[in-house]
C-alpha cells in the first residue's frame, strides 16, 4: 500500500457552519482534534457560510462525528476512506513504480 497504509480509515468531511455559533463551535472542535484542514487553509478563515473540508484520522473520526452531532452541525462525508481514494487515483503502473 502507498504510504504504508497510514491513511486507511481516514475520512474527509465537509461542513458549512450556518451561524456564528456553529463557526465558533467548529473552530473549537478543529483545535481540539488537531485536524488537517483541506479548505480553507487556516482555522481563522472559518466563519458562517465558509465551506470547510477537513481530513480526520481513523482514530479521531468517530469522536469528531459525535461532537458534531452533539453540536447539531450538519456534515457530509466526501471521502470515506482516504487510503482507498489514494490507491484508486493513481494508475497501476504509477503505484507499482512508486512501490
Amino acid at each position: 500500500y502507498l504510504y504504508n497504509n497510514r491513511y486507511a480509515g481516514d475520512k474527509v468531511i465537509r461542513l458549512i457552519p450556518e451561524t456564528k455559533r456553529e463557526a465558533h463551535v467548529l473552530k473549537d472542535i478543529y483545535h481540539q482534534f488537531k485536524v488537517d484542514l483541506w479548505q480553507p487553509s487556516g482555522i481563522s478563515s472559518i466563519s458562517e457560510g465558509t465551506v470547510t473540508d477537513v481530513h480526520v484520522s481513523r482514530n479521531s473520526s468517530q469522536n469528531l462525528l459525535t461532537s458534531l452531532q452533539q453540536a447539531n452541525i450538519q456534515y457530509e462525508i466526501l471521502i470515506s476512506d482516504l487510503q482507498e481514494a489514494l490507491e484508486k487515483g493513481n494508475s497501476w503502473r504509477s503505484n507499482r513504480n512508486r512501490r
Partner: protein
Amino acid sequence: SLGDYSYEVYHSLEEIQNWMHHLNKTHSGLIHMFSIGKSYEGRSLFILKLGKRSRHHKRAVWIDCGIHAREWIGPAFCQWFVKEALQTYRSDPAMRRMLNHLYFYIMPVFNVDGYHFSWTSDRFWRKTRSRNSRFRCHGVDANRNWKVKWCDEGASLYPCDDTYCGPFPESEPEVKAVAHFLRKRRKYISAYLSFHAYAQMLLYPYSYKYATIPNFSCVESAAYDAVNALQSAYGVRYRYGPASSTLYVSSGSSMDWAYKTGIPYAFAFELRDTGHFGFLLPESLIKPTCMETMLAVKNITLHLLKKC
C-alpha cells in the same frame, strides 16, 4: 522525446527534474534551464525559460506551480504547459505568437522539499521543510511568507500551523530566491501566474484586504475572458474575482507581492476540483484539467499582448 514522457501521470521530483534536463538538451532553440538558488534542504530551484531567443529585451510571463506541496495538479499543469508550447509552436499561430513575443519563466515545482516530502512521507503536507531549532514543527507556508502585509490576517505566527508565516518575510530560501529573481526583472515581467488547488477559481489581487486594484477593469476583463475560455472546453465553471472576497483574506501571498512589485497582471489559479477528490485528483482527470486551463492561460497571455 516529448512523446515518451507521460503528461497524464503525477511524477516524482526526480522525474520532473530529469525531464527538465532532457528538454534543455533536446529543445535548446526554445528552452533554457537554469537554477535560481537552493532550497532549505539543498535542492536546486530550476526554472525553464521558454520562448524564441531574441537579441532584444522581450516581455515575460512568470508561471509557478507547487507552492503548496500537496497540490500535485499544479506541477502537472506546468509540465503540460511546456509540452503544449513545444508541440504546437509550429502548428498553432497563437502559441507561435506567444513564444515569439514573450518569454515564459516556468517553475514546475516551487516547493521542491515539500513536494518530495509529500511524495515519500506525508501526502497531505503543505508547507516547506525548514525548521527552527526552537520549535518542534517543520515548515512555513510559502504563500504567507512574502513581504506584503506579512503575517497579518489569514496567516499564523504559530510554527505548527499550516499557515505559519515564518520568522520573518522571505525567511524561506525558495521565496527569497524567486522574489530576488522577479524583483530584478520586474520591468519586463507583464504577468505573474501561480497554480494551486483546489477550488476551481481564478483569483486576482488583493488577497490581504478588501479593496479594488487600480487596473481593475483590465484585469477583470482578462479574468472574465479566461474563465469563459476555460469553460468552453468541458463546461467546467470557475469562479473569478479578488482573492479576499472570492476565497478568503490571506496576507503575505506571492500574488499580492507580485502585484505590489509592479507586475500588472497577477493571478492565482485554484484548479480542479471543488472537493469530490480534493487534493487526490485522479490521474485520469489530469488531461481535461490541463487542457481547459491551457485555454485560460493562452487567453490571458493574448490579452496582455494587446494593450489594455
